[in-house]
């Protein structure tokens, strides 16, 4: 089977090579045979099929315990549950690169399939650029990180080395694929943009088509980042979900630029402005996804999430250089067509707010990138590696994020082109007043720290503006149709008619919920360390904990000790739950891990960690975190993802510029 996988990978490389060259060559011609374009389209889909076969071949080797394969031996073990044998496919560098290639090719094949209805001048170059990206990742996999290699020498452990215990978690099944879907999805806007520049087909078509693909990638990336945060929260035992770790940051950087693009692309679509800016954002987004891969796989930064250090970093740097060189060359070639058709007329216009939103997002992106690269820069300049920690990231980013959330409330309420100052004052008066009252009430209630008060007040302001928008929308819809304003049918009709607008409001509402949850969990978190013997009690917040007993457990791949701790209400002594934090010892890997006991609640999470057991085995030390409103962070993320999918659903097909220029709406081929 391993030979078959290797063959499929090599075939995918040949097809991607042929399709990228042919696509770019056809795209540079004035005319091309439809049959030739169809061959490139089919080759694009065949690349995905071949890489799918290669992935299945690797998975088969894992599930059938083929420990003659080096990669399978290194990341699997006979005693591991089958689900972890499957997830181990992407548990190491080689398999994760193969999955990455497959997802790039899969997205490319979806675009290729949909391209039958795209403007014809755009298609050959688009297919060419899609395959160039697939070719790069397939080349890395085939020539540098090939998972289809046999073990060279007999080894001491014939049943496999086993997967890192931290990766033996259900989230391993969903978090990496989701994150990779996000990363790989965001290469499509770049391919569209470069194809538009290369072919000179710079009409609104590429912008309209790209927006949906960007939304798909953005939504997957959002889900992937949040799932990673949830996994870290459950698995790493430090009571938090985001540590500004370099690899976490690497996933966040393209998210920021993609978010900026999703806003600025609306300005280009409607006003013909920010064309060059959008090319920059799309290129930067793709470059940052490649940079993230480089960061995770080059070993230049230390992280719990990073793969082992390898010598393939230079290939990513080379490719990054190529991405920018191609973009700059094409921009210079099309510079006259990229000049704006209008300028921003007023600072009180939606386009001005979107531009400001972009600048804030890019400032956050720069600050995070600076923090990530600081150890590298400091080592290059001073010879000593210095790192910046959570305080740096929070100090720089918290005010910027609050400004961003504030703009989220302002943008949708302001009109395009120019807003009436009188009507703006009327729209914002109640939300501002509400936010002020919330701020005063919080200070009166004892919340005196500046940022939490500001964050809750801004969140309330944005909530009021979203509700105000909804109310005005329902009113306008009712006035147009004669339906009752609050009738469900009126709301459904409004949502159907303006799905993009209300999908965006849904995402903004999700961000709002997350903002409140993050503020609460940062500002009002309680953290304690304590030691208990059997029968002893400890009080924290509105809870009392009592250590009941220790319990030994033996599983197929690890031994565990659980501490059974009764969680009671301090108020009336009633038992809420018996929590069971545990310490595990993975026999094959000879590694210890801790498993958190978590009681999730709408009001707060109780997060208990078994930190250690003394030599007599009767006394244990614990760490407890009370995280207020933590669960709302996940609810907010679900709302955001839901909003993303609502917006990414296909819209009714519009005639392309090519069809319109021919004066009829026909299928281009």
């Amino acid at each position, binding site marked *: 089977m391993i030979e078959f996988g290797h063959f499929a990978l090599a075939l995918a490389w040949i097809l991607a090579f042929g399709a990228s060259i042919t696509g770019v060559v056809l795209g540079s011609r004035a005319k091309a045979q439809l049959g030739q374009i169809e061959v490139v389209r089919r080759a694009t889909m065949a690349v995905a099929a071949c890489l799918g076969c290669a992935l299945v071949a690797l998975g088969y080797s894992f599930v059938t315990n083929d420990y003659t394969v080096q990669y399978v031996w290194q990341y699997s073990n006979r005693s591991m549950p089958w689900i972890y044998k499957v997830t181990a496919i992407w548990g190491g560098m080689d398999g994760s690169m193969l999955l990455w290639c497959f997802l790039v090719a899969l997205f490319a094949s979806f675009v290729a399939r949909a391209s039958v209805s795209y403007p014809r001048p755009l298609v050959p170059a688009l297919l060419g650029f899609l395959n160039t990206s697939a070719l790069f990742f397939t080349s890395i996999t085939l020539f540098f990180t090939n998972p289809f290699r046999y073990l060279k020498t007999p080894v001491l452990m014939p049943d496999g080395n086993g997967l890192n215990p931290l990766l033996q978690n259900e989230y391993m099944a969903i978090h990496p694929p989701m994150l990779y879907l996000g990363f790989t999805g965001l290469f499509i806007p770049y391919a569209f943009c470069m194809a538009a520049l290369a072919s000179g087909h710079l009409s609104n078509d590429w912008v309209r088509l790209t927006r949906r693909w960007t939304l798909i990638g953005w939504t997957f990336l959002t889900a992937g980042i949040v799932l990673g945060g949830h996994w870290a929260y459950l698995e790493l035992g430090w009571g938090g979900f985001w540590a500004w770790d370099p690899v976490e940051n690497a996933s966040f950087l393209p998210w920021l630029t993609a978010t900026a693009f999703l806003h600025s692309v609306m300005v280009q679509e409607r006003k013909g402005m920010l064309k060059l800016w959008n090319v920059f954002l799309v290129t930067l987004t793709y470059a940052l996804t490649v940079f993230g891969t480089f960061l995770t796989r080059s070993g230049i930064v230390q992280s719990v999430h990073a793969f082992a250090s390898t010598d393939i970093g230079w290939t990513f740097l080379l490719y990054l250089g190529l991405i920018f060189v191609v973009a700059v060359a094409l921009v210079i070639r099309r510079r006259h067509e990229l000049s704006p058709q209008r300028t921003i007329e007023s600072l009180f216009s939606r386009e001005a707010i979107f531009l400001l939103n972009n600048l804030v997002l890019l400032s956050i992106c720069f600050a995070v990138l600076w923090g990530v690269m600081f150890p590298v820069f400091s080592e290059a300049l001073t010879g000593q590696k210095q790192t910046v920690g959570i305080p740096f990231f929070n100090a720089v980013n918290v005010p910027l994020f609050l400004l961003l959330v504030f703009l989220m409330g302002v943008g949708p309420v302001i009109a395009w082109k120019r807003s009436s100052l009188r*009507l703006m004052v009327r729209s914002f008066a109640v939300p501002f007043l509400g936010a002020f009252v919330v701020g005063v009430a919080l200070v009166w209630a004892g919340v005196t720290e500046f940022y939490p008060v500001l964050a809750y007040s801004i969140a309330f302001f944005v909530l009021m503006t979203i509700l105000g928008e909804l109310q005005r929308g329902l009113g306008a819809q009712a006035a147009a149709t004669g339906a009752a304003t609050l009738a469900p049918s009126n709301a459904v009709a409004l949502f159907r008619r303006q799905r993009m607008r209300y999908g965006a409001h849904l995402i903004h509402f999700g961000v709002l919920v997350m903002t409140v949850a993050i503020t609460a969990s940062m500002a009002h978190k309680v953290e304690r360390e304590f030691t208990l013997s059997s029968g002893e009690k400890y009080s924290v917040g509105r809870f009392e904990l009592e250590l009941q007993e220790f319990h030994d457990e033996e599983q197929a791949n690890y031994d565990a000790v659980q501490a059974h701790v009764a969680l009671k209400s301090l108020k009336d002594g009633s038992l809420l739950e018996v929590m069971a934090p545990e310490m595990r010892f993975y026999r094959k890997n000879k590694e210890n891990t801790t498993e958190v006991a978590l009681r999730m609640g709408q009001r707060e999470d109780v997060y208990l960690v078994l930190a250690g057991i003394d030599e007599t085995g009767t006394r244990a030390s614990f760490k407890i975190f009370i995280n207020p409103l933590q669960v709302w962070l996940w609810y907010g993320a679900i709302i955001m993802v839901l909003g993303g999918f609502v917006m990414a659903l296909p819209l009714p097909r519009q005639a392309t510029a090519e069809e319109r220029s021919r004066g009829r709406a026909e299928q281009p081929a």
Partner: protein
Amino acid sequence: MNMWIVAAAVMAAILAFLLVKPLFEPALSVEADLKGDAPLRNLLDEKERTLRALKDLELDYAMGKIGSEELEPARRALALEAGKLLEEIKRNGGR
């Protein structure tokens, strides 16, 4: 092992057939214009933007973001622009 070699050969043969087939289909032997009419395309884009701006203007008015004193001049300006664009599109052979 032989079984996998046969599977690989079959896979390669099927892919080769599917890939080459379009080159021999008479319906796909037509040459397509890949350059198009750029000036007309730009005019049509501009027309679309103007109509969209009119729609946004109406919506902003209905939602109370602009008043009637701003609506009328802006609507007149956009209608004028749309008229000019339509004439130019006609001159360029479009509809």
